[in-house]
């Protein structure tokens, strides 16, 4: 155990993401790297953290707020992996982290994992979040998502859900229009 700890402490620092070093001054990049590296050492996906940092930089946000946001996102990714298990894919973890950040209880993630065993949770979670963001109550949205998951619905079934579908049971995709695939 001690050997592992020593090896971890003395391991060479992982190369900085070039997007971070290109967009932040060296001292700021070093602070961001502390958070990003800690996620990487846990085996969590680091791309969402890099993107959140870039978002903060684009929006001209003070560094302290960016670092805080990254810390919260890392914690959410960690919690998502604890709930979904070590085999969860990076996209699942990212969406689950977004759900946790939005206030979805982790028990709901665990339930969805059970209902959709062996299938990706990305689409149902994304649909759930989108419905809540569109003004549907969390319980109503969850009821519909869980029902679809029980009936082994496809990813498209989830993502095409709209607030109106909750009342009418019809599918019509809102937001940016997609072609050749689905939204």
């Amino acid at each position: 155990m001690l050997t592992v700890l020593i090896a971890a402490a003395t391991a060479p620092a992982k190369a900085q993401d070039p997007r971070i070093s290109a967009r932040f001054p060296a001292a700021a990049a070093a602070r961001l790297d502390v958070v990003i590296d800690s996620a990487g050492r846990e085996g969590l996906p680091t791309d969402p953290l890099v993107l959140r940092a870039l978002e903060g930089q684009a929006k001209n946000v003070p560094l302290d707020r960016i670092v805080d946001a990254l810390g919260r996102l890392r914690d959410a990714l960690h919690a998502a992996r604890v709930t979904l298990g070590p085999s969860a894919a990076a996209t699942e973890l990212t969406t689950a982290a977004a759900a946790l950040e939005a206030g979805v209880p982790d028990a709901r993630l665990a339930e969805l994992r059970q209902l959709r065993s062996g299938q990706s949770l990305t689409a149902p979670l994304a649909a759930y979040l989108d419905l809540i963001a569109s003004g549907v109550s969390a319980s109503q949205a969850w009821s519909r998502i869980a029902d679809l998951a029980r009936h082994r619905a496809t990813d498209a079934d989830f993502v095409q859900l709209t607030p109106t579908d909750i009342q009418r049971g019809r599918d019509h995709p809102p937001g940016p229009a997609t072609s050749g695939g689905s939204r």
Partner: protein
Amino acid sequence: MSDELAPDDPLQPALADLRRPVGVEPGLWTRARVRARRRIVSRTVRVVVLVLCLGAADFFWRQHAGTSVTFALTAPSVRSVALVGDFNDWRIDQVKLHRVGNGGWETTVRLAPGRYRFAYLVNHDEWRADARAASVADDFGRPTSVVTVLGR
């Protein structure tokens, strides 16, 4: 046991043949070196061509893979609108929307499957969400939307 054959050994003529110095054709080594170099150059060229072909295929795949997503904003009295998000590393100057009439702005990009946060940057200084897309909580106090693209 000795390695030497007896003088009357029937193998002696063959041994004598083997011991006779062999004349080396002048320039043989030079030609062999040139041939070896040519082989190396030829193999290197083949590897470079293969790498270039793979790169071209990757570029083509990136250009044509994914799903076309049209982003649109209605903003009649603005000078410029940029699409900024996870899909372009939040670069504010990479994807510009073009006017489509009646105050509309639009652009279409190809996106790989995933869930992307994005926003519009209007006149280089004002962030706006997409009214038709879901909004997401934003740590930074700016309007932010999200779009989900599924695999085919």
